Structures are given as C-alpha cells and as structure tokens.
C-alpha cells in the first residue's frame, strides 16, 4: 500500500464522516417535521392527557428540539444511538442484531446476480443480434418485470411446499448453524439475486458492446490476436468499470433493505425494521437505521473506487 493510497483512504474517511453528519442533520429534521406524533401513536386511542404527558416526558420529547439534537449527536459519536420508543431496546444493539441477516441476504443475492449476469451479459454482447442474444434479452426483460413478491411466492410454492427441499421462511445465523443458514438464505437470496441479475445483465451487455466498438479492440483483432485474448484482455476487462458501478449500486440497494422479500420470507432484515420504525415514528430507530444504511453506502462506494484502480491501472486513487 503506497503513501498515496493511505492519503486517499484517510481523506475519504474524513469525507465520509462529514457526509454522515449531514445525513444526521437531514434525518433529524425530517423525522421531526413529518406529521404524526410518536406519543399519540404509542397510546393509540387509549389516550388521556395525563398519559400523554407522562409518555412524552419519558421519551425526552418534551425538551427543546435543539437540545434533543445535540444530545443525540453527542451520544451518537460514542456509538450510543439512543433507545427505541417502541421496543425499549437500545438502537445500536437492535441494528447490530439485524445486520447479519441483511448482509447475508445482500451477499448471497449479489453473488447469484453476478454469477448469472456476467456470463449472460458477455455472451449476449458477443453474439449481438443472434438468437442467443435475443433469448438473454427477453429473459432479462422478463426478470426485470416480474415483481419480487410474486417470484418469492412462486419459489416457496415450488421448493418448499411442493418439493419440500427448503424451508419457506425464517433465518439462522451463519456461525450458529451454517447448514441452516444456507438452507434458509437460498430462496430469498435467489429472489433478490434473480431480479438484480436481470438488471445487471443488461448493463454488462451494453458495457461490453460499447467497449467492443472501440478502436483498440479493432486494432487487437486486426493484429491477429486470438478471439479469446481480444474478448477477455481487451474487451471484458475494460467493460468491468461500469459493471462494478452497477454492482455496487445493486449491493447498496439490497443492504438498505429489500422490504418485499423480507416480508415474503419473514426475513429479519433492516427493511422491515425501518418500515415499522417509520410507521410508529420511532425517531431514535429511524435515525439510527438511516445512519447505518448511509454508512454502508459510503463503505461500498469506497470499496468500488478502490476496485476501479485494481481493474484499471489508469485510474489513480486521488
């Protein structure tokens, strides 16, 4: 690792912290501006003025907003993201409990997507206009259009209820029960992965087509290099940069929560957590979850940027 790389990483880290602080300000402002009073929701209609005041004070919502904000930022820097209004659990602990399930699903989903999309996209581009290209394009169009909700239900009907090969729903931690983890993650992973694969295939195809039209590819061909070398060294390698970008975006999207898939497979990921938190106006949990998702986005961005430099040495980390 060179000094330049270190300087690059340090600068990016600092930049990330600034972005996170910005995210914090915006989220804090938004949750307090959105209509809907968390205390009222918690009480439902068993509402009395006394009960309202008591719960409001217990949640710290009776303090001035600025005081709430600085109190929150102060403790957030020490890793304490407060206590959920709804559950009474510390937000940091809840998020850390949900994170492994989210990472499992995202990782398996993106691997499935890449394993399908890279060969399919490259094949399709290299056979542009032929029948196999048409098949890939139609299939991926189908994959983009099919709702993940529907696909999940079909997969359950086939692999769980009919064949009995895999569980319908639920999650097992990888380190407690690797076999159980695998069997539970396959169907939701496949649902996420197939949808992402359909999107990525189209990107890979157009990226490869674009590079294949470049002058240096023509030159490589004309100087008599074998089609294999032209394809992999000249075409595919140069097409990897845009492919990395879309992979990073897909991964970040899945990490931010794939709520429909989580609902269908009863998967304890971040998506449902955020959804419930917003419905209950659970300010600390919303803020903490958005902060975590933003941090994951920044991290993936950083990794993608570093990978750019790895696949394409012309790109400098600066």
């Amino acid at each position, binding site marked *: 690792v060179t000094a330049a790389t270190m300087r690059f990483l340090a600068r990016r880290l600092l930049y990330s912290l600034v972005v996170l602080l910005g995210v914090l300000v915006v989220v804090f402002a938004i949750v307090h501006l959105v209509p*809907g009073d968390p205390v009222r929701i918690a009480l*439902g*209609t068993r509402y009395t003025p006394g*009960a309202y005041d*008591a719960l409001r004070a217990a949640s710290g919502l009776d303090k001035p907003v600025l005081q709430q904000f600085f109190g929150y930022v102060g403790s957030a820097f020490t890793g304490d993201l407060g206590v959920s209004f709804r559950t*009474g659990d510390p937000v940091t602990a809840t998020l850390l409990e949900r994170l492994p399930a989210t990472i499992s699903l995202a990782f398996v989903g993106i691997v499935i997507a890449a394993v399908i999309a890279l060969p399919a996209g490259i094949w399709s581009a290299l056979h542009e206009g032929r029948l196999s290209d048409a098949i890939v394009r139609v299939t991926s169009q189908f994959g983009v259009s099919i709702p993940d909700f529907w696909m999940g*239900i079909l997969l359950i009907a086939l692999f769980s209820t009919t064949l009995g090969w895999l569980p319908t729903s639920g999650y097992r931690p990888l380190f407690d*029960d690797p076999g159980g983890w695998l069997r539970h993650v396959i169907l939701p992973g496949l649902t996420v992965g197939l949808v992402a694969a359909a999107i990525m295939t189209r990107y890979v195809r157009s990226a490869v087509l674009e590079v294949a039209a470049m002058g240096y590819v023509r030159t490589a061909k004309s100087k008599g290099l074998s089609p294999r070398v032209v394809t992999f060294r000249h075409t595919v390698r140069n097409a990897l940069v845009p492919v990395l970008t879309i992979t990073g975006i897909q991964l970040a999207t899945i990490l931010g929560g794939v709520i429909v898939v989580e609902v*269908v497979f*009863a998967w304890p990921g971040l998506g449902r957590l955020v959804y419930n938190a917003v419905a209950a106006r659970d300010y600390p949990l919303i803020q903490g979850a958005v902060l975590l998702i933003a941090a994951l986005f920044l991290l993936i961005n950083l990794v993608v940027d570093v990978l750019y430099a790895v696949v394409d040495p012309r790109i400098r980390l600066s």
Partner: protein
Amino acid sequence: MGKLGAILAVCALTLFGPLSACSTGERVDLGEDASGNLVAAIAGEPDQLDPHKTTAYFSFEVLENVFDTLVQPDANLEMRPALAQSWEVSPDQLTWTFHLRKGVTFHDGTPFTGNDVVYSYRRIIDGQLANVDKFSAVTDIRAPDDSTVVIRVKQPTPNLLTNLGGFKGMAIVERKNVEDGQIATHPIGTGPFAFQGSKSGDSIALRANPNYWAGAPKVSGVTFRFISEPSTALSALQAGEVDWTDSVPPQRVSQLKDDDSINLTVTPSNDYWYLALNEARPPWNDVRVRQAIAYGIDRDAIVQATSYGTAAANQLAIPKGNPWYVPYETYRYDLDKAKSLLREVQAAGRPTPRNLDMLVTSEYPETVTAAQIIADNLAPLGITVNIRTVDFATWLDEQNSGNFDMLMMGWLGNIDPDDFYYAQHHSGGTSNAQKYSNPDVDRLLDAGRVETNRDARADDYAKAARLIADQASYIYLYNPSVIQAWTKNLSGYEPRRDGAIRFGTATLTRDGTQ
C-alpha cells in the same frame, strides 16, 4: 384493549392456488433450545413486552401466555378466578375483597403476594399508563395481608371484574422486573409460560412454567415466529414448519375448509368495524343526512369485499351469540329511502352533502377497500367521496383534530357493554371523535355503569345502543372473525372470540418426524 393495535388478517393479494396443496411434513430445524416447542406464526412483531404499556395485539398474543390477571374471562367471556381464587362485594357495593391463590410464584421464583397486585395497579394509576381509565371508579387499593386485596370504589361498579381481568393489559407484574428496567424486553410473570428469549424481527421463545398454578403446560414451550405475509404463513403450516397460525389469507378460507390436513376455524369475534360522520361539521350534524348515508351504503358488499364473506354483517356493535346481543335491523341498502331523506333536508332549507372527505389508512387495508365501495354506493345520491388514504400516524392526528367528514375504523377486545359504548358515544367520552351528543344516551350509559341488576343493566344498554344506531352516531358495519389454522398434531387448543391466544393446555404429538 385499545383501537386495533393489530392487523386483522391482512388481505394481501395472494393469487397462487393449487401448487401449495401437498405438504411434505418435513420439520425444519428449530434450534436445540426450542425442539419440542409449539411453533406459532403470528402476523407481526410485538413492539414491546411491558403489558401495561403496549397497545399492540401482537404483544398481547405473546403476553397472554406469560402473565396472569386477578380474574380472567372464560370461553363465554364470563369472569372466572385466576390469581384471585374468590372474591366478595360489600352490601353497599363499594368494597371488593379478593382472596388470592396461595403458593403462586413468579417465573424467577419470587412468591406472588397482595403487594404485587397493589404495586401493579398503582403503577398504572400513578404513571397514568394507557389503561388508567379502567380504574376510573377506584378510590383505594390495599393489601391487608399477603393473600388479600381490598379495592374500594366510589360508586357501584358492575364491570369491575371485566376491567380488572378483561385482557392482559391489566396483568400483575413483578416490582423488581419493572424497577430494573427489564420488563419491556424480558418480562417476568406468573403465567403458564416464561419468557426465554427473542430474536429481533424473527421470533420470541417461551418455555413452560412447570409450577403453573393451573397445571404445567404439556408442551415444552412456545416459539412465536413473525410471518406477516399470510401466504407464507400458510405454506409454513402446510410444510410442517409451524403448528399454528392466525396469519391466514381470508380469500382462501372456503378452499381450506375442505383441506383435511389442517384444522381451520372461523370464530365470530367481539371486534367490530364502523363508519363515523363528523357531527361538528355541517351537513353531518343533521341526523337525516347521517341516516341517508346509512341507507345509502351496501353493507353486504362491504363485508364480501373486505373479508371474503368471513365476517358477519351487523347493524350494532355486539355480535350474535354474545350475552349482551341486541337484535337490530333498521337499515337496509335502499337508495330511494336515502334520497327521500336528503330531499327532506333540502326542503327544510338545510344544506345537503355534495362532497365527502373520507379518511382511511393503509395500516388497515379493509378501510381502503370499503371506501371504494362506499364511493361507488354514494355516487347516485349526488355525493362525491374523496378517499384520503394516509398512514396510521397521520390518521390518528387527523381524527384527533376532527379533520374529516367520515372515517372507518374498528374496535377490538371489548367485553363489557360499557367498553362498547361509553368512550365512543357519551358526550364526555374519550373516543367520541365524531362529537355525538345526546342527553338520553349519556343518561343511559351513566346508569349502566352503576346498575348492579343484570337485567336492568342489559335494558339500559339495549336502549342506548338502539338510539346510537338510530341516530347514526356510528354506522356499524360488521363483526370480523378470528381466523386460525393449526396442524392435526395440535390438540387441546380452543380459539376464543376475544382473540386471546392461550397455549397453556395445548398438546403436540409429533408423528415420527422431528
């Protein structure tokens, strides 16, 4: 219990059919602690497990099995002994003496005494917690000795037992559990099952309490899994991964009734859905306009669309079969009657409705579905219904500030007629969002609160209920059903009309698998 803390059988659009018919019976790993547990799939995750603070039905599905109340409702919703073995009322009806069961312990081994009852009730009253209104007549609670509790009331209170034991929101909790801040996440009760652990977004595990006063449960424990998608819950049941669920798609009920591999029950519940018109706003303050709406809606079509016919249409709140049921069939779908009522209003020089702002919430999809039918129903009356679909938080705000013409909502967990009518229709009622006010109804509801003669009391409420429906304070729609399904391996479990889920007497036989 409060207003629909729960989603009643969410009507998701699940369309696939015959593929799921065959089941393998294979049981997927439960983890070592939980093997032999009964696995119950509920439709959502409890918010918190403090029975005095939560308002969510999902929480009460779990807490029903962890906590006890002083008395508790039997299958017919009559109050029976629980932590109190017996009780007597003084001749002036103002002093209730409860004799507590001896030898009961909390799950951590601490003995249960009268002080725990006093502590639990004082916690709700002094902390102004959500159920404080249940104690509105109570002036004093004390425990003269370890096995006696004396409650004094300011007026005769025929529904005191229902208030104290109607649901687990009135549970007897342990002081230490509250004071060390654990009750919301690690509750300790005296019930048939003890809290064992929870996995965020996934499940809660309970283990059997071998010392339970009514006898140890026959299953080693209960694992509640959170499966909100009904078609997934049903698949999990058919695949043998779960033993019981109340997350059943209503559109599949008629088909599942013929399925011999599972038990399916559709139990009429005490819950009800209604429409309310905002009487603080003209023209809805005119009783004839409200009645025109009541005649203008097609109740049967609404029942069919929202519940696939599993609910029972009702023009009053209390369902048939309930001891407080009153027959009432004034309204029918009759556009001519509705039009003539509106013409009467017009002839009297009063305003008639042109637009109707209908407030519904995506949290309860039945309200959105019904609103579309109602919009269609009222168009021939010259009324344009503007359906406003908001999230529940906004819905509560709008209801609270009176910013609506009509809304649709439901109430659940009611037992005593006072629960059904007082807060909603008394002019001083805490849930009278429609601002209904009628001195005769007020007088009848006040009288019912203190009337100790059962027949006279029933008469008060029957009169009040008829007035409420005649004047369309609420336009009652239907009583939904509690829909539950379980495997043939599960026995000793009975569905209840109050929606309480009790696994204390359930037995599980695993046929070879597992």
